């Protein structure tokens, strides 16, 4: 884990018609790290994602203060088109990300590369690779609009992967999906995380997030309320509650046991950890 791919310093932002949506936000993401962003509705999570690829402020206008540097580029000094090769942004609703200009899954993935003017052979290689990575092999010839929600979201991820961005930004990629869709998309994200991709992901499914996030940032009313390793942030159950975020249930259970029953368990943040801790305590391993 070396240099910081994303560096946000004292970022403060107001939309033209809404003040202080982000206030003094600072954090960084190193190469190969996964940062999870959590927080209640309206906290400014999506706005933060858009600040990472320059849509904020280039597209939305408004006032911005502080500094955002992504892959060595200051977002204030580069256009969204330039930043799009470094930052791959995936939105909540996969349908909104379909260009509507591609007849097939293959063309949809190729679209971004075509827009960026890559040569054909390179496009072909990258498209095949990206489709394989998200597990859509065999569906190249389908219409994007015939896919299930989970497949469409994986396609959206593939369109971004094909560009080989230095960082992947996912804004609630599973919010619109049914349980199977969620599972499919999480599997892809976990795989990418294991392979060493640098990822920023906004996610409400805390239990899932805990299994692959290195660091977590808790945002509320545009302010950073907690920032640190996943464990540091998630084990502060009272604090999460205060900002309307449900901690993982194993974390909460252990926390309550420790507090009410007086046990002295280590606080787990994933089921796997909980299993180890409890198995040990019960003497069955």
């Amino acid at each position, binding site marked *: 884990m070396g240099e910081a791919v994303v560096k946000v310093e004292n970022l403060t932002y107001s939309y033209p018609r809404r003040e202080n949506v982000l206030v003094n936000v600072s954090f960084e993401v190193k190469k190969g790290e996964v940062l999870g962003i959590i927080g209640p509705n309206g906290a400014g999570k999506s706005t933060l994602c858009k600040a990472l690829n320059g849509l904020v402020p280039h597209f939305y206008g408004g006032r911005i203060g502080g500094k955002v540097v992504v892959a060595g580029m200051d977002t204030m000094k580069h256009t969204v*088109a330039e930043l799009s090769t470094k930052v791959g942004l995936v939105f909540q609703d996969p349908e*909104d990300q379909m260009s509507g*200009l591609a007849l097939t899954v293959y063309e949809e993935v190729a679209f971004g590369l075509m827009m960026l003017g890559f*040569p054909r052979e390179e496009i072909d290689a990258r498209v095949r690779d990206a489709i394989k990575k998200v597990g859509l092999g065999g569906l190249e010839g389908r219409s994007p609009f015939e896919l299930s929600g989970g497949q469409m979201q994986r396609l959206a991820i593939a369109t971004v992967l094909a560009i080989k961005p230095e960082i992947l930004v996912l804004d609630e990629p599973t919010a619109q999906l049914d349980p199977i869709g969620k599972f499919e998309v999480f599997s892809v994200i976990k795989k990418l995380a294991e392979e060493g991709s640098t990822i920023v992901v906004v996610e409400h499914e805390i239990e899932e997030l805990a299994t692959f996030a290195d660091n977590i940032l808790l945002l509320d009313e545009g302010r950073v309320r907690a920032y640190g390793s996943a464990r540091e942030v998630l084990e502060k159950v009272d604090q999460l509650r205060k900002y309307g975020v449900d901690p993982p249930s194993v974390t909460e259970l252990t926390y309550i046991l420790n507090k009410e029953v007086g046990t002295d368990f280590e606080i787990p943040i994933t089921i796997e950890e909980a299993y180890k801790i409890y198995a040990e305590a019960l003497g069955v391993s």
Partner: protein
Amino acid sequence: MGISLSLLKRTAVEVETFVQRLDGRVKFLYFIWASILVYIFYDFILNLIFIIVTLLLAIYARVAKPIAMTLLVIIVPWIAIATPILSLPLGFPWNKTIIYYIKFAGYEIPVYLEGLGWGITWPLRIGVCISTAMLFYLTTNQARLVATMFKMKVPFRFIYMLIATFQLIPLLVDEANTIFQAQLSRGLRTDVGIIKKLYYYLALVIPLTLSALNRVQIRAIALESRGFSAPVTKTLMYEAEFKWMDWIFLSTIIVATIVLAYVYITYGYSPIAGLEYIWG
């Protein structure tokens, strides 16, 4: 979601007849050309001919149903309601030629040619615009059209405007459908006054319109984040070359223009219907 998805899909049509294969530019030209011509001429029979030709092409391309439905919903009621009013005394300021008397309750009510002619010609002019525009929209593959425009070095802004229009249409259709369903589920309440009805209607229409516009903006953002306006030479999937079919269609348009120019010079602006000119 349902309808908008199927419309988006439709614009990336699977059925391939020669109408679909025609270059988007040629079909767009047909739309503009026909719309201008029916405006230059003042002849409802000519308008009808244009509509029939367009419908024949649409039937061949298997997209006639939505076009016919739209014409039925917009044009037919207009002719049915406005034309009778226009043809009666005081219905139309330019009325002077009486062509018929209706006997009604002991009165003889005159029917005027000017109002009648105007009342039939105008809706049909609009009908030509709508049907040719829809033929273009429903049979043109957006991906191909956009590729063509990139190749022609059309500024990104214009290309984007076209895409936005293409994508707003299904969203609005979707919205109209939602409103219709909501009205139905409210059981077309008869116990409320017209003001209250209007209020309910606006309470539905406004948020839905805003959300449709919002989604178009999100789509714009998504396109932009994928390098849509990156200042480079785009790699294109489709060849934007005219094929022989395009040349034939184009030649037909040119020949028809020459013939119609001759007709205009020889017989005037209303060669078939023989109407007298009224402003517009």
